[in-house]
């Protein structure tokens, strides 16, 4: 079997996690290239539907990375994001998908190392879970139809 390379989307808030990702870069800390970042001003902007759609169209895993608890630039966006991630986890469970495919992580702007570590761990988790919804079958048929 050909080795499975998961595709992972990370929604990162501008103030903390995205900066942490840049920090990982400037420190040349490597992490799996599977992780691709979409920048948002605050994780409070990330809607449950964004996570679901990402899975639907081909992501094998999605995570939301915001500021540390209590440190959100916008007071509590990270808390709301976490609640939405939990809702998506519940929906996935109901649908028979692994809830581990979505996650919430919290980082401060200075945590380049931890950003990389999170990316590594999450990628490993998804690698073990195997291909996600969008990868199973059908996606090409749908595109064609």
């Amino acid at each position, binding site marked *: 079997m050909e080795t499975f390379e998961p595709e992972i989307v990370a929604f990162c808030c501008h103030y903390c996690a995205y900066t942490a990702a840049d920090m990982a*870069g400037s420190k040349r800390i490597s992490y799996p290239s599977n992780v691709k970042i*979409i920048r948002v001003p605050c994780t409070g902007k990330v809607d449950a539907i964004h996570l679901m759609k990402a899975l639907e169209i081909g992501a094998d895993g999605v995570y939301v990375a915001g500021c540390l608890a209590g440190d959100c630039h916008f007071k509590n966006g990270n808390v709301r994001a976490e609640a939405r991630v939990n809702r998506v986890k519940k929906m996935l469970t109901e649908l028979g998908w692994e809830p581990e495919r979505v996650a919430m992580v919290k980082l401060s702007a200075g945590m380049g190392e931890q950003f990389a570590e999170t990316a590594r761990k999450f990628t490993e988790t998804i690698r073990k879970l195997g291909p996600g919804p969008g990868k199973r079958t059908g996606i090409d048929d749908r595109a064609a139809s």
Partner: protein
Amino acid sequence: MQKNNSSENTLSCDRRVLVIGGGVGGIRAALDLAESRRDVLLIDKSYAIGGLMTQLDRTFPTNNCDLCTVSPYLSQGARERHLDIKPMTCLTRLEGEAGAFSATLVTEPRYIDTEKCTACGECAKHFPEAVRVTPGLDPRAPTCMRYPQATPFAFSIDMDKVTDITALKKICKADAVLENDQRTETVIDVASVVLAVGADLFDPAVLDNYGGGQFDNVVTGLEYERIMSASGPFQGNLKRNSDGRRPKKVAWIQCVGSRGINKGDVPYCSGVCCMYALKEAMVTKERFGKDIETTVFFMDMRTHGKDYELYLNRARDEYQIRMVRSRPHSIVEKSDTKNLSITYALEDKPVQETEEFDMVVLSTGFRVGGETRDLAEKLGIDLNPHDFAATDHFNPVLTSKPGVYVCGVYESPKDIPETMVQASAAAAMAASNLPVVSVDQETEDLFMPERDITGNDPKIGVFICDCGFEIGGILDVDKLLTSVMTHQDVAVAQAVGYGCSSESMAKIEAMIVENQLNRVVIGGCSPRTHETKFQDLLRRVGLNRYLVEIVNLRDQNTWTHMNEPDRAQFKAVKLLQAGIAGVRKNRPLKDHTLPMSQNALVVGGGVTGMTSALKLADQGIKTYIVERAPALGGLARSLRKTIEGDHVADFVQTLVQKVTAHDKIQVLTRSIIVDHTGMPGLFKTGIQTGLRMNYMQIHHGVTVLATGALPNRPAQYGLGTFKNVITQLEMDSLLEDDAARVRSMDQVVMIQCVGSREKGNPNCSRICCQTAVKNALRIKKISPEIQVFVLYRDMRTYGFQEDYYRRARDLGVKFIRFSLDARPGVVETQGTLSVYTHDFILDSDIEIAADLVVLSTGLIADDETTEDLALLFHLPRTVDHYFLEDHVKLRPVDMAQRGFFLAGTAHSPKTIRESITQAQAAAGRAQTLLAKKEINLGACVAKVDTKKCASCLVCVRACPFDVPFINAEGVSQIDADKCHGCGVCAGDCPAKAIQLLAYEDDQILAKLDGLFER
């Protein structure tokens, strides 16, 4: 007189500042002034500004690419309205006095009209010998421009080497060659002068023992930087000069030409070499192979900057860089291999060792050049014994001549953050000779009117920066472009080299106009640092600034996946697809603005806070000082004398009087900050003041944090237990108050690094070595008979402090090194103290009877206070609880949260002198913000589609800032000037009636689509 590229009309202005020297310091000073709307003329003897930093490869401690870091500043310099740049210009005479100088400037002919030159490079291609391309110090220059982000962005001609002027003129399509260009002399009126001329680097060829300039494989630190640099002679490959092989074993020799007493040596410490050697060694391992052996030969490892000790630990522990405490005697070149053998002696071994290396880097330091000495003479400023500018002891940017200020290395050897601090300080001081500027004089930036693109189909231009090696070295940019071109709506896809250089920017602008593009994708570095730059580019060509999407190909791709180029390539394709899909959905947006509060809040009423407040108040800014103690003065109140011998109390007293008397300063002592709201330019801070904690609120536009640090007092070495174990701070008082008691002593032992550079507080406290030397000298002054022992780990008397260190040794102060695994011990038996330690030179344990043991305990951060304020203000801190500035290298005074500035020991331990400088800098930086009439809130605000709104109140309840409300029409209303742009409401709206502009759902979903497009 030949008129060419100077703008004569602005030269007549007499309210301006002349900045001499276009290195990072000069640029920073000039930009600070220009941003606070003072007219500035920046002159540089070279044909492009940038100075030394542009030639470095990476900077410590972040190991960022230097050019990338500095280039935004260079090109910003070219954009500023209040700033003129005159390259190839020197000052020949300065007359008059502060506020009304008359400066005579001479500009050498460039023979190129900078307005016309497009820097196409045709001239350099055809007449390489006649077109100036040499970068000065380094013969192994890049082949085209000195560096690709040169400012001004134009070539220059060496007319002596031109053989056929007609042919040269013909080759220039822009008709920019000025055959008859002449040396011009201009006399201008200036109010003040900022000297930012820097210093030269020592040329090791004058030394006969290291083979500098003689052996192929012995290079200076700067040459090594050039070799590693992507824009260097080997395109970023590490090679030996002799045979082009990659070295396997590289050595660095520290203090070459510095801290010496031999021929050609200078006695002072250059302050930066330890860090740059560590950096070069780390980057070598990181980029060219972990198997390369790196060895640093040093005397004292001087990593005294903020968090630099952690860098040292990383170099040693993570990168396995070998450190040998020894100053090698000589280097011998092997004639066959051109390898180098180094002979050195170890501290504890009597016999010398010899070891062979492939390459040796000489860490050479700063020297004042002859030209600079001439300039000083013309300016009429005094020099110190080392030919650097002599400066005020409490105010290092003041030269002996009023109205002339100095910053950077020319003041004393220093690294970039300190240069940046001084530059801002010098700018702030220089501005004090100018009339106060009122915000009402502000006029709008002039950009061309925006093109209406409604109804137009997307026409996307994709531009990819190779950023030298950083991106292009890992990705196949051509392949990327081919893949990009297959996407719908992409009209242009181009590689643009260093995208942020003015050359490339001009190219992009031209292509946008030529192809009538209405959307732009830039593949380059992080939007966090470069988005504004490219947004401005769009504005220049009449496009709304929200029509650009920055794809982070560097920080989040090539830098992190450098070992997997194939996968980085794949990821780059995906990221670009996402960018293209996203930009297609971008719409023109309007920015929102609010009026700016013109007050300043200074937290902390120590020397730093008072200095900042005075500078601000002098500029007409209403300034509040909030201090928790009953009186102003801070930690300086417990200091008696500086190393220079000045009385601190007098200085503090004068400062307090000035502050108290100033009618623009409101002092709030016994005051505690308890709440904080608002945004940069419109802050509101709640304060409890007085013993009974009366509550009041202050409105302010900016905040300066000057909360200071605490004297450390760890219970080590019997401090607090043995009566005669005291701290240096107590010693300072004892020396002033009880000379008789000191005189009665026979032996005094000082112990360094108490509570610093070890577990729990890993950083260096920076001030203790000079304090110990200061107090040792004072003891010796009271009685030369007293034996003084200083037990140290590394003596960090950086810069000119080295003079005092040397004097102490000359006077017989005994410096004995110890290491952490063999700490000294202090015991008391029947009232007498003994200190035990291991002497490395004698290689035996020794005991010293001491009348007094003085501990250098340094400073620690005020954790409780910085934590409290960090929570209130949402500010980041370092792991050891100091405030964390926005950029450790280039923005040491600004905080990540706009509108907050940092100064003094709240930033990191530093001397009074250094704190004062940073205080001035903070005031200067604050003014750049206050100079604006309005705050731009950006366009990223929530917008309600009233047709979809179900008036459910979810947004009203969800908003962390209580902005949405249900209006008279019965639908949700979100006022753009109140919205903070977090998007929480948009994420929660059950009717999907709210969109966060610039991050709309269809933009995010489009990006997802782009990522998974096949």
